[in-house]
């Protein structure tokens, strides 16, 4: 028999998981960055104080990098609240999650721990282990110089090599470094060709110092670009007339690729239709993996209303997620139909415009008698308001009492006011969605959460996820 408190706990945790997947503390269409941060800050504190164990376990649940860093920071700052038994799991979870975080985020997190004056034995051990696991200390010393320096200074750790210590703390002591990367950094101060041996972000600063034209710089630095830098700088390099090799779009992650596509002007999208569609399809096939073609008849309702523009800081993010989901669902399903809220049919030319008549589109989707309806929307149904909820309710109670069609709502936007993603209807499971790649897992999770989940069940699920997460190979 489940107690009332247990049900509340389960609800709270599911709510937090939605928030931790979607919220990034940045401005959204309806709320400013301040409101987002305030709301998220409260949620983190609430979870940490009340359900510390479950709070730590969400690190295993695919929460986004921003929230992972916040969780780790909160756990380390309030280390004394943890029971001795919890510490071991917590430490393992933190160490494991740090390995999947991008290094710049980890160094920023270390900086924040330093500012919060957290320097307990556990924190030092965690930083030490993470630094020891970095594959190339010299690369970190060059690319994340200030971050590494601050981390070493904070924890009083000795650098692994003597040369590295000099490089970070007394760079002028040596006239020459043995490690080629360190020496390139030394030479780049006065020798232009040396800067092309450095990582892009570091070389960029030296290029500005030497007054190198942007076009020429981008062309020569091209081989040193990371995959995402390549994608990000494609259009900029072209505008500066650099003859850099085009990024291999097919290798890019699906949602990033969708963002890139939507940033292109319509005329160019039309011109490069074959190339972009092929790349999106290839990325979707990769994301679908073994599930490809296993989902039966699927109808998607995709939101391309004006609010899918997101904000200046998250430009077209909700629309990009919808576009990525469109391609992914097309691969997962045997038969697939897409229904954009604007009524347009050409997904590649999607553009955030117009109101959100979700109710009418849901009706269109239901008319194809699908096994599964996936709604990707920020949940602001306004033409007319609340019609989608009514349509779904009446459909469930009157037309489909046997649950032949299941409906899932995936929401890419965190609603700061409700501390959750905005829901469409009480009977429809809603899950937060950050990257379209997570869609298969979320749809399954949402369907599982359709019945009221008890705490024991949730705990078991979390324990399984934690065990799987900890035993995973890194990357």
């Amino acid at each position, binding site marked *: 028999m489940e107690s009332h408190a247990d049900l509340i706990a389960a609800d709270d945790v599911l709510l937090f998981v939605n928030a931790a997947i979607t919220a990034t503390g940045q401005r959204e269409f309806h709320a400013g960055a301040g409101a987002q941060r305030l709301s998220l800050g409260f949620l983190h504190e609430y979870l940490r104080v009340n359900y510390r164990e479950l709070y730590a376990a969400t690190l295993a649940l695919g929460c986004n990098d921003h929230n992972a860093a916040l969780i780790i920071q909160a756990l380390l700052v309030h280390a004394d609240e943890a029971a001795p038994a919890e510490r071991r799991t917590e430490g393992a979870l933190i160490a494991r999650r740090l390995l999947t975080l991008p290094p710049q985020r980890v160094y920023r997190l270390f900086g924040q721990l330093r500012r919060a004056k957290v320097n307990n034995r556990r924190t030092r051990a965690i930083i030490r282990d993470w630094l020891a696991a970095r594959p190339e200390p010299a690369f970190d010393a060059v690319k994340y110089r200030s971050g590494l320096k601050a981390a070493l200074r904070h924890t009083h750790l000795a650098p692994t090599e003597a040369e590295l210590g000099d490089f970070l703390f007394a760079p002028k002591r040596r006239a020459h470094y043995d490690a080629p990367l360190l020496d390139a950094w030394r030479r780049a101060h006065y020798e232009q060709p040396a800067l092309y041996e450095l990582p892009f972000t570091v070389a960029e600063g030296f290029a500005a110092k030497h007054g190198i034209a942007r076009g020429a710089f981008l062309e020569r630095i091209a081989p040193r670009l990371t995959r995402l830098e390549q994608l990000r700088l494609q259009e900029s390099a072209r505008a500066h007339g650099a003859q850099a090799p085009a990024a291999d779009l097919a290798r890019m992650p699906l949602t990033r690729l969708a963002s890139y596509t939507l940033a292109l002007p319509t005329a160019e999208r039309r011109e490069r239709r074959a190339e972009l569609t092929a790349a999106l399809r290839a990325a979707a096939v990769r994301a679908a993996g073994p599930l490809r073609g296993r989902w039966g008849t699927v109808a998607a309702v995709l939101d391309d*209303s004006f609010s899918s523009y997101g904000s200046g800081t998250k430009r077209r993010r909700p629309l990009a997620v919808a576009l990525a989901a469109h391609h992914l669902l097309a691969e997962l399903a045997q038969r697939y139909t897409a229904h954009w809220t604007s009524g347009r049919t050409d997904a590649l030319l999607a553009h955030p415009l*117009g109101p959100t008549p979700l109710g009418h589109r849901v009706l269109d989707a239901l008319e194809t008698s699908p096994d599964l309806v996936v709604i990707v929307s920020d949940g602001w149904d306004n033409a007319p308001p609340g019609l989608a909820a009514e349509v779904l309710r009446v459909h469930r109670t009157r037309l489909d009492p046997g649950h032949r069609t299941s409906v899932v709502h995936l929401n890419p936007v965190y609603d700061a006011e409700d501390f959750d993603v905005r829901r469409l209807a009480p009977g429809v499971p809603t899950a937060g969605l950050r990257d379209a790649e997570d869609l298969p897992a979320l749809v399954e999770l949402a369907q599982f959460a359709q019945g009221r989940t008890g705490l024991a069940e949730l705990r078991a699920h979390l324990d399984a996820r934690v065990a799987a997460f900890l035993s995973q190979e890194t990357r």
Partner: protein
Amino acid sequence: MTTPDLSTPDLSTPDLTTPDLSTLDLTGLATRPAQSWGAVRLVPLVREQPITDLRLHRRLYPSDGGPSVVRLDDRSTYTSYIPHGFVADWTRDGTAAAAYGTQLDVAEHPRSVPLQPRGQHRMARREDRTRLRFLPLHLALEGYLALHFNGPVIAWREWSQRAIRQGLSPRAEEAYFGGEVSGLADALRIFEIHPGQCGVLLYVADALAAAFVVPHPEDYRALHPSLLHDLYGELVHHYTALMLPLPAFRASIPGPGIRTLAQLRAAAEQQEREWAEFHDTTMAAGLLADEHTVSTVYRMGRFTLNRFLPGFQLKRENHLGETITDEHGRLAYLKTFRLSENQTRRGHLLSRLAAHDWHLARTAEALGVTEAVLGLRLESAGFGRLLRQDVLDGFRKQVRAGSGPTASRPV
């Protein structure tokens, strides 16, 4: 905050030469579901068939924060904060017109006309054979400010020398700048413009605050942010500051009787129709059902630029505004301003006085009050200086002596 006032006397007749009673005709404009944010509710109006031979364009008047001066005639001026003017372009043969500044051939017309020196503005000014520049809302407000501006038509002995010589001048009214209306900026920013949308009705705490209609959807898209630069009545400001967020009019479909998807779809469409009907007959009734006094300002091809004044009925919605109508009287352009209770009262008093040739006793009789009460009411409406001081003092004495329950009876 804006303070339009007329600072020099005007003894010519106000521009109400051909007053004409009529109601607004929203034929061709369909109501779509409202979107609300905080206390603000925006109801989009969609045109099935956009008007192409009349286009509107905004011209910004960058100001240094101070008021602009508009010359009405040789002796009177209108002073207010004026952020922008509208430019109307039309064609005489019914072919598509282009909004000013978007034509390819702009060599002979500079893209932006430098701001005229102070005092050179006009309310409506022909700039070309088929181009008119006018100051939106100020055109209508000026009509309200100039209402019986000349003062008493017969020099009854109660009126002061100043009233006889200068009339109501200077006449001043206050309004709020849209940027100061809390929540309006956010409501406009997150509003999702419908395809084909040509207008919007702005409700604050479900009281109709302003209406705005343009000929073409692209004009609307360009002019949507201009709503933030407009003037709003006192009521709008108070309601947004005091009101809690409004609930949306959520659709609700009764479950019983629905057996197929087609029936469900029909029920959903029924919802939209019901909303449009409810809105047009209930929410917007104050603007659409009441009769207005219309006067023509300018004729441009088959279109006419008019301004209209409300009937100044107390305890009712009173909207003044301006319209551009075609030869059938259908709206191509509409912009309204809601008068506050005090402004309505002032308009009411002035129009009642004018109807009785400014004779105090007869007006008082028509309003069902004593002369003294009417005198004090004039004073509290801000027209005290029109009455002679000794007459006003006499009225005060009479009322204080207790001329009975009439003193407190509302009109």
